[in-house]
């Protein structure tokens, strides 16, 4: 460690290059787009791109919340289960109280569960992996109890037409995803809460010493993550017209993969919504492209696993170079 005093180059030479090094997922995305465009004639069409965006948007909305929690250095494994609960409540309650109150209650359930996760993590000192793993199992159980182990169907099919708004080929769901991602990118870069998120994830002691209320801060981000999971669940229930008790199963894993693929670090302090958008789109393009090629499901899983590890290896290599010898 005798080189600890040696200055690491602090010049901002080649800003564009350094942005690209930190956001290498976009290079990765461009590569996958090129590969699939060359290998499938149906891939490079406006229609298919609209599909990719819509398919990706569900994981994307979860990923926005997950990114906040992960920059904090935490993780939320319960998003898939929260999604299923919100989706079941939105459909199950609307016959009794009307569509809008049902949606609001579904949102509230997500917010409340997120708050509970956050409060447990902040005040008990337990690792969020454990807390939200418990939440994942418990909430999933609750969904089965509520739905009576059967899919709930909407009675009034006008509910399923609510998200049928398109901006050209871009669905409402995709618009909501991009809107949320851009809004929270602005929150991260331009508000006190956003700066706190990096400070807490990066150096929690420094954040605490600087007078940041770390506990309250983490609770807010877990609450946001839970709320966004509910948003995702409600949109899914509109799209499908049913609420499966198994909805969103292992989506928390796809979400984490998308965020990590983007470059946000599991240990916290580093990441952005730009990265997450890149990760979400790459994941969506990969899944869509592989299906276009009629790849068997298990091969798809193998490819996705390999891509994840490859992307993380790339991140290691690039960041080692950036950090200097």
């Amino acid at each position, binding site marked *: *460690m*005798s*080189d*600890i*005093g*040696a*200055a*690491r*180059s*602090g010049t*901002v030479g080649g800003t564009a290059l350094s942005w690209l090094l930190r956001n290498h997922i976009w290079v990765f995305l461009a590569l996958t787009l090129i590969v699939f465009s060359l290998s499938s004639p149906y891939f490079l069409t406006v229609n298919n791109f609209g599909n990719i965006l819509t398919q990706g948007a569900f994981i994307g909305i979860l990923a926005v919340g997950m990114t906040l929690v992960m920059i904090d250095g935490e993780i939320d494994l319960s998003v898939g289960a929260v999604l299923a609960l919100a989706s079941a409540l939105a459909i199950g309650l609307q016959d009794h109280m009307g569509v809008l109150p049902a949606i609001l209650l579904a949102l509230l359930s997500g917010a409340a569960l997120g708050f509970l996760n956050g409060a447990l993590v902040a005040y008990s000192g337990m690792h969020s992996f454990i807390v939200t793993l418990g939440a994942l199992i418990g909430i999933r159980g609750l969904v089965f109890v509520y739905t009576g182990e059967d899919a709930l169907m909407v009675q009034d099919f006008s509910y399923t037409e609510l998200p049928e708004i398109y901006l050209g080929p871009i669905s409402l769901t995709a618009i909501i995803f991009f809107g949320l991602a851009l809004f929270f990118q602005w929150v991260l870069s*331009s*508000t*006190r*809460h956003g*700066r*706190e998120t*990096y*400070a807490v994830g*990066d*150096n929690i*002691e*420094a*954040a*605490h*010493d*600087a*007078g*940041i209320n770390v506990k309250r801060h983490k609770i807010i981000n877990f609450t946001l993550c839970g709320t966004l999971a509910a948003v995702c669940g409600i949109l899914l229930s509109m799209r499908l017209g049913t609420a499966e008790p198994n909805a969103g199963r292992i989506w928390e894993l796809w979400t984490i993969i998308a965020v990590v693929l983007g470059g946000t670090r599991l240990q916290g*302090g*580093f990441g952005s919504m730009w990265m997450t958008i890149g990760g979400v789109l790459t994941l969506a393009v990969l899944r869509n492209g592989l299906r276009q090629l009629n790849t068997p499901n298990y091969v798809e899983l193998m490819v996705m696993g390999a891509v994840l590890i490859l992307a993380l290896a790339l991140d290691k290599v690039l960041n080692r170079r950036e950090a200097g010898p």
Partner: protein
Amino acid sequence: MSEVVLEVSDITKAFPGVVALDRVSFDIRAGEVHALVGENGAGKSTLMKVLAGLYQPDGGEIVYQGQPTKVAGPLDARQKGILLIHQELSLSPELSVAENIYLGAWPCNRFGVLKKRELYSNATRALEALGCGFGPHARVGTLSVAMQQMVEIARAEAFSANVVIFDEPTASLTDTERDQLFHTIRGLKKRGVGIVYISHKMDEIFDITDRITVLRDGQVQGTVDTRDTDLNRITRMMIGRTLDTYFVKAKPEFGAEVLRVEGLSRAGLFEDVSFSVREGEVLGLYGLVGAGRSEVVETVFGVRKADRGTLWWKGAEIDLPTPRKAIDMGMALVPESRKEQGLVLLMGGRENTSLPHLKLFSEVSVMNRAREMGVFEKYRSALSIKTTGPDQAVSQLSGGNQQKFVLAKWLCADPKLIILDEPTRGIDVGSKSAIHELIAELAERGLAVIVISSEMPEVLGVSHRVLAMSEGEVVAEFEGDALTEENLIDAVSHHRQDVAAE
């Protein structure tokens, strides 16, 4: 005499089982640098945390700018103008310089949206006042340690601090960086800031401070003007004994040569390094940070690769070893950063001691717990290590005791050559002399010892022979009566001037 800006009287703070501060009183005047010294555990860091609002005192009073004050928390302290600059810097590497200066106190509108223009122009002003060579937009993680420290000091400008507390600020700085830091501190002082300076390094304390307050066992031993005192007196106040007992040199009875190195070179790190060390001999390697001392011994131990060079081990020429081979031959390297390289902090002393030699303690991979315990007990008493038991996590021990475990773990393999890289960095004076005694004892038992240190008195005090290194080269060798501070300083500084002139 300038006015008192901060005064604490009869501050008491107790933790379960210890009274960390026992009716401590002292004061800081505007425009002075006030040193706070004491062995580890004397209460310096507790006192400083009370001042910075990280701890609330159990009793006593803090008077700040003439008013009795309660420092509610770290942010409150900062906003009042009391700033603590931690040894482990309190920064977020991913945030920008400006965002770090105002960490947690960013200028915002009432919706919590940052006022970026205000943030960056204020930060620019603070950085310019200090004469920093970097802008507010740089990401802190890309800056050197010295620059990161300047970011913390810039908080003093940004919050118009009246009191700045430095905790071991030079622990990881090079000499040039330290000079720059002292320049900055003198600038703060000129503008009437009261400065508390905590350090183990006595030369720095005599260089920069105006008054010295000595703490021992949570009590103030006295406050003296720096120019009216000397190292001997301060040390006596700190440990209750004089400096004469400080260094013990082993009897110079040398046996056969253990290691000889010739022409060892590695591009960019060191060039044509040759030396040898004998049984019973303590060889000192002195040089400033960056001189290549650690790199040389790490290469001998096989951690790094060399471009050229020949090694002889007990008279026979050998290839550059791998660390495993080096250990098997009988070499031991006790690295500089014991937390990062030397110890597994969550393991207890027993497991740490046996870690590098698990083969010695196991039958077919199954650990022999009794043998392990025996060795642990042997070294616990031999090195008088203070630990509650074999399984107390070493992270809970003081720096000195941790360092003793690092030594124990290498000694139990019975090495022929032991290399100690900065063996007393960051540990208190009492443990320091215990380690110096141990070095002498090892040499008298016939080990060859290489000691690397940037503390000149230590190198001179424990070594029979000293190599001076500068810019990757061995520039001089001294022994016997030639072992003096002047010779070492001359050798190192002349060489640096020569290099600069080329």
